[in-house]
Structures are given as C-alpha cells and as structure tokens.
C-alpha cells in the first residue's frame, strides 16, 4: 500500500545571468562589499605601541617629532631591523638609535664602525662605551628645568629643558660636551663633535609626544635630528640579531645583505608559505562543509504545557500572599476527606461524627483531633508547617494497619 507520486523535475527557471540582470543591485553591492573588505584588509596596519617608535601616537611614542621633521622636508624612515637600515650615504644621513640598550657585541661594533652622524636616545651603557663617549647614564628622579650651560648651538637654541628619567655624566675622556647640567654635574643632553657628530639624549622623555611641547624640548629635538635630509630611525629590539647596513659596510661586496639572509630563522625555509596555504585550505574546507545538502526541515511542534503548571502557579500565589490560613484549610479538608473515606464516614457527615471516628481510630483525645482539623487558621509560615506536620502525624496514626 504505497502511494507513488508523479515524476518531479527541477523547474526551468531563469539562469544565473538572467537573475543577475533582473536584479542588478545584488551583484553590484556584493562586489562593492568585497572591494571594501579587501581594502580594509590590505590597508590595515597593526597599532604600534613600542616606546619611542615613530608610529606610536601614545604618550611614550615619537610620532609628533617625526611628523614635524617630515613637514620640514626630512625623509624620516623607521627600520624594524638593523639590516633594514641600508643607508645609502652616511654623510647625509642621521642614524637614530632609540632605546638600543640590549645590542649584541657585534652589533655595537658595526655601529662603532658607522661613519655618519648618530643620535642616541636612551642609550645603553655598552653603546656609550663602544662609541668612546666616556659618558655614564644614571637614572634620576628629579625633574628640574635647566638652562643650556654649554657651547653647543642646538642646546643654546633650546634655552632650557627638563632633566627627565635619565641623566648623563662624565664624558671628559671622550670630549663630550654636557648640556643642561644640574647641581650634581649630570646633564640631560651631550654631544661629541668629531669626525662624526654623536649626540646623546639622556633625558629621553623630552622627545616623546607627551613632553615635546614643553620648554625647549621641541627645539632641541628638531635641531638634534634635523641636521641631514635623511633620518633613519631604529628602535632597539632584543629579537633583532642583524647588523647595521650602509653603502660599503661589508668589506668584500658592495651590495648590502638581503633581508632573508639577515633574518636567520630556526624554522626551515618555506614553513611560512606552507602554513599559509594550509590556513587557506581550512577556509576552503569551511566552504566545503558550509554548503548545506538541502535546507533544514521545519518540524511543526504542538503547544504543550505541563498539567501541573496551574497548580504550581497557585502555590506561588499562596506563598506571595502568605495565605497560610487558606493553605491550611485545603490541607485539612483533604486530610479529613481521606481519613473519612478510610474510616467509612460518609461525605455528608458532620464535624462531630468525623472527629469522633478519627479520634477512635487514632486513639487520641477528640478535642485534640478537633483542634488539628478545625482549629484556628495558622497565620505564619511556621504555624502552617506545624499544622501540616500535625495533620501528617494524625493521618499516619489513622492509616496505621
């Protein structure tokens, strides 16, 4: 007894092109959406939070000074690695080493060999020693505004700066000129003018976005960094193990080393592209699994409510209204009915008959039974619970075999 239906075939509807033509907005909007997403993906750059980085717009970044320098016509370029510096002409370039406190010995050697001007911001002690500055950097807690107190033109132009975070001292052996000296003889800024000019900014917060607009900070920073038309900015990175590159740096070959060679990696070459293609495969697998084999089927569900729901609702109403009297009355009537049925007392029997029968069955005082069944209505939850407890006990006694 099977009921077969007719043959069914897909309707001969309009094709994809015809549908696109009838609703041109859909393909156009989806194409725009794809372009929009692609643009977002391609142009987005992760936010830079490195201290003293020229892309960092936070308080400890140096974006402000970099922008001013660019506006003044200086070609400011930040390099993530030493090898990426690739300085074409050291004589027309200022190399900024910011926060370079953790350089390896060979990196320091390469910096010492560099012939062009160097600006050190928050330098490490090793670097100061290798460049033969004779300076020592010490932390300070006093933020005092000091006047130039030296012969350097940049410092004089700045007139006064604050000594913040770190101060420099010593430097006589290297011929360093200390500026903005405080009472202890330590200064915020020092400069060694020789074959190449090495300027050292000890009080590095001077150059940050936060403090650049105070005192003569801007003047000092801009004059210190704006001497040449090119500025290469490097922020110290403990994971960078490459060495500084400039035209003619490697003795045997003229060409600077490429980035790949300067980035020795512990993973075998090609790992990144393999991982990349596997990630794309995951996306393709998602397309494979995401296509449903036919739509989800709807199940018409009937309305079903628990039959006891109304009783539970009534219980909540009793509770909220604290209707302990009413609740006790229901329990008493029910118990009396049950016991009466058990003892064969007719429904129509009066109070005395029921109480008498129950008292005989339970071997209790009729007054006691009368109080339990017909006593005063309880007024509190505790009294209600006591009443119900007494009813239960009485019923157990009556139903005792």
């Amino acid at each position, binding site marked *: 007894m099977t009921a077969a239906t007719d043959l069914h075939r897909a309707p001969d509807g309009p094709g994809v092109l015809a549908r696109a033509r009838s609703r041109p907005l859909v393909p156009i909007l989806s194409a725009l959406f794809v372009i929009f997403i692609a643009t977002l993906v391609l142009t987005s750059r992760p936010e830079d939070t490195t201290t003293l980085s020229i892309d960092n717009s936070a308080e400890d970044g140096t974006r402000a000074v970099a922008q001013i320098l660019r506006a003044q016509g200086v070609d400011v370029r930040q390099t993530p690695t030493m090898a990426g510096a690739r300085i074409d002409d050291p004589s027309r370039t200022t190399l900024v080493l910011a926060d370079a406190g953790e350089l390896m010995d060979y990196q320091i050697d390469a910096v010492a060999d560099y012939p062009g001007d160097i600006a050190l911001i928050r330098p490490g002690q090793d670097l100061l020693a290798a460049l033969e500055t004779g300076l020592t950097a010490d932390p300070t807690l006093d933020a005092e505004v000091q006047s130039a107190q030296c012969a350097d033109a940049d410092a004089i132009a700045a007139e006064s700066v604050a000594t913040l975070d770190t101060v420099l001292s010593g430097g006589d052996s290297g011929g360093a000129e200390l500026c903005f000296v405080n009472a202890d003889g330590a200064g915020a800024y020092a400069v060694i003018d020789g074959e190449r000019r090495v300027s050292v900014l000890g009080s590095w917060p001077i150059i940050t976005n936060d403090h650049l607009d105070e005192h003569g900070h801007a003047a000092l920073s801009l004059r210190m960094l704006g001497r040449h038309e090119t500025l290469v900015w490097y922020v110290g990175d403990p994971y960078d193990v490459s060495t500084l590159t400039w035209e003619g740096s490697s003795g045997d070959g003229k060409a600077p080393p490429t980035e790949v060679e300067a980035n020795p990696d512990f993973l075998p070459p090609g790992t990144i*592209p393999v991982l990349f293609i596997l990630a794309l*495969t995951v996306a393709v*697998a998602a397309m494979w699994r995401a296509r449903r*084999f036919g739509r989800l089927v709807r199940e018409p569900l009937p309305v079903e409510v628990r039959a006891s729901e109304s*009783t539970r609702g009534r219980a909540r109403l009793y509770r909220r209204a604290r209707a302990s009297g009413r*609740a006790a009355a229901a*329990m008493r009537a029910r118990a009396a009915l049950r016991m009466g049925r058990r003892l064969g007392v007719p429904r129509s029997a009066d109070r005395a008959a029921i109480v008498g029968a129950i008292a005989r069955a339970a071997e209790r005082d009729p007054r006691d039974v009368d109080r339990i069944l017909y006593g005063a209505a309880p007024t509190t939850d505790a009294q209600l619970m006591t009443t119900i*407890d007494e009813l239960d006990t009485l019923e157990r006694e009556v139903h005792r075999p």
Partner: protein
Amino acid sequence: MYITGWTVLLAALGAVPAALVHERTFAWLWVLGALALAGLDALLAPGPRSVAVRRAAPGSVRLTESTAVTLEVVNLGRRRIHGAVRDAWQPSAGTRSDRHRLRLGRGETMRLRTPATPTRRGDLHADLVTVRLEGPMRLAGRQRSLEAPATLRVLPEFASRKHLPSRLARLREIDGQTAVQLKGAGSEFDSLREYVIGDDVRSIDWRATARRAEVVVKTYRPERDRRVMIVLDTSRLSAARVGNAPRIDASIEATLLLTALATKAGDRVQVTAFDRVERARAMGSTGPTVMPQLADALATVTPALVEPDWPAVARLIQSRLSQRALVVLLTTIDASAVDGGLLDAVAAIAAKHAVVVATVDDPELAELEAGREDAHEHYAAAAAARTALEQDSVGARVRELGADVVTALPDDLAPVVADRYLALKASGRL
C-alpha cells in the same frame, strides 16, 4: 553549486610546492586556481533538469514501528550522472540515513530506500529532494532541491493492546464460554439446559423443571449489539502534558482499547473527537474494518486550544444515538469544566444513557502534595490539595448526576476504562 572534499585536498596539496617556492603569493595563486578549477567543474556538471524524482511512502505506519520511504531517481539527460541525493523528511519521521549516492547511466532509474521510524503521531510531510550532480573532475557540482510532496500517516501507537488478551479472557468468562464454576455472568436470558453438577443452584428454573422430568437451569449471556459511544475531548485541557505525553494520548489509547474490546464483545462502537466542532469520527463500520478506520481517524487528532462546547456535545450524542447506549466521555475533570457546562451535558446525557466520565490523573499532583521540604513546598502541597479537592467535588457532582467517574494515571487509563466497561457489561447495566 557545491565543492567536494577533493577540492579541499587539491588545495592542501599545494603545501608541497609551496615548501619549495617560498612565496606567499604562490599559496594564494594555488588555492584560487583550485577554486577556479572547481568552478569550471561545476559549469561542466550535468544540469539539474537532467534528473527527475518520484517519491513513494507507505500509506500508514503505527507509531514506534519502522518502515521505509522510497525515492526513485530517473536520469533524463544524455550524460552519465554521478552525485548524491537527499530524501528529506520532517525530523519526527525519523529518517536518519537519508543521503544516498547516485550513479546513473543514460535513461536509468534508481530506487532508494530510506528507513524511517516515526516519533510522532499524525501526518508527516516530506520536504524537498536535494540532488547533487558532480562535474567530470569530481571537484564540484551543481545542487538543486526539487519539490516532490509526499505524506506518511502515522497511526496511534496503541500500546494498550497488551491489555487486550486479558480483557478478552475476562469477556469470555462473562460470556460463559469459559469453563468456570459460575453461571454466565451476563444478564440477558440465553437458553435452558440440563443441570450438571457444579451449576449454581440459584439458576435452576423451577417452572421448567416442573414441566419436564429433569432439573433445568437458565443460562445467561451478556447483552450483545449494544451501542457504545466514545467522545474524545480535544479541547485545551487535552493539550496539557501529563508525564511525557499530552492527555489526549492517554485518551486515544483508552479509545482504541475500549473499541477493540467492545467490538469483540459484539457491541457497536462509534467514536467522535470534539471540542467546538467535530474533529474526527469513526462510525458505521463493523468487523475487522473498525480498528483500521478508527486508527486512521485518530491519527491526525491534535488538541485545539479552545474551550469545549459541552451543549453541542450533548446535542451531537442525542442526534447520533436513538437507543440507550454507553457514553464514555474522555475528558478532564477540572473546576473549569463546571463553568464550561460539563455537568449540564452529563445530566442531559445521563437521562437517557449510561455515562462514564474518564479523566487522566496527574502523578505530579501527588508528588506536589507530598512535598514537605520547605515553606514553598508546603504551599505547593496545599495548592495541590486544593486542586484535588476541586476535582473531587466535581467528580462527586458528576456521580450525583448518575454518571460513573473513572480517574487513572496516563498509562492505566485504558485498562481501567476497559475494566469499567466489563463491569457494566457483567452487571447488565448497558
């Protein structure tokens, strides 16, 4: 269009050359190339119009029993077809493995069986048939869903039929067919026969004995050809869930068992499902066609969220029954039933017929009434007691009107109603 796992594999295989090339662009090119190849494959796949489907479902199946629905797929195109097909039914049809591989030559037909174990009573409908046609490279293909309506009627489970043999045995005892040391317990005079040792001496017919030279006893049998009318209340209270199923399921089980029993006992049964209008009816058939007709009629009965129209029920019963009959009302005794006119209807029916009002007890009420954990449970117990009292008083008023009241837990309702019927039959009150 859809892509297959082979496309994914092809994309993953790009990892091998990517390890040698070291270029990220290569990865993009490889994966986009794989996708483009898949797109080309989908274009080359046979069109969805090259297949046609035909569905077939068994006419009906009993709930919880297994059956199979079939799907025929015909290749109408000129090319060989590889692919898959999904024979989708609504979830309660219980078709778990509804996906099949397709391999069809030109002009060939495939019959695919999908086993089904329905989990809900009523008419279950088939959804779309989805066809996937693979391209020549097996990388991708075209997908289309086709309308092919079909319906599977799922009959009530009739789980209570396990109670039927014992009730039939009891019926035969009443009938006097079984050798028991009792007279046939019916009330209708059957015949006179010779006394044998063991017969009840009270059944000796002294007049007949006087006429003949031997002792003669009267034999009785239960009345036959009585009318039984079962009214199944499908109004809002029948939708309430008791235990795991709505009340109406217990009522349907009771209807089926009582009908099976009464038909075997030689009575004529008619059934109506009613709330404000008649939702289903089964009447007028006799013999082996009664049960299939009834199951079919009750298969699609669902509770309606309306108040029952009791005066209309009374009028319907008066119009359907010309002679005295047993009327079984499968409903809910509830305080609201009084306002709805149940009592008036029972009074009107009981004036002419024997009435049994059967109702499903809620085991949760007893649980609530026994709760003594905290103050809230005490109030819940009181509320349950109040509900029980109300039901009790309505039951008492129904009894005062001359009707019988039967209450039982959902699983017990059918045997309890059947027992009540047998008791009435034995005492000759039909």
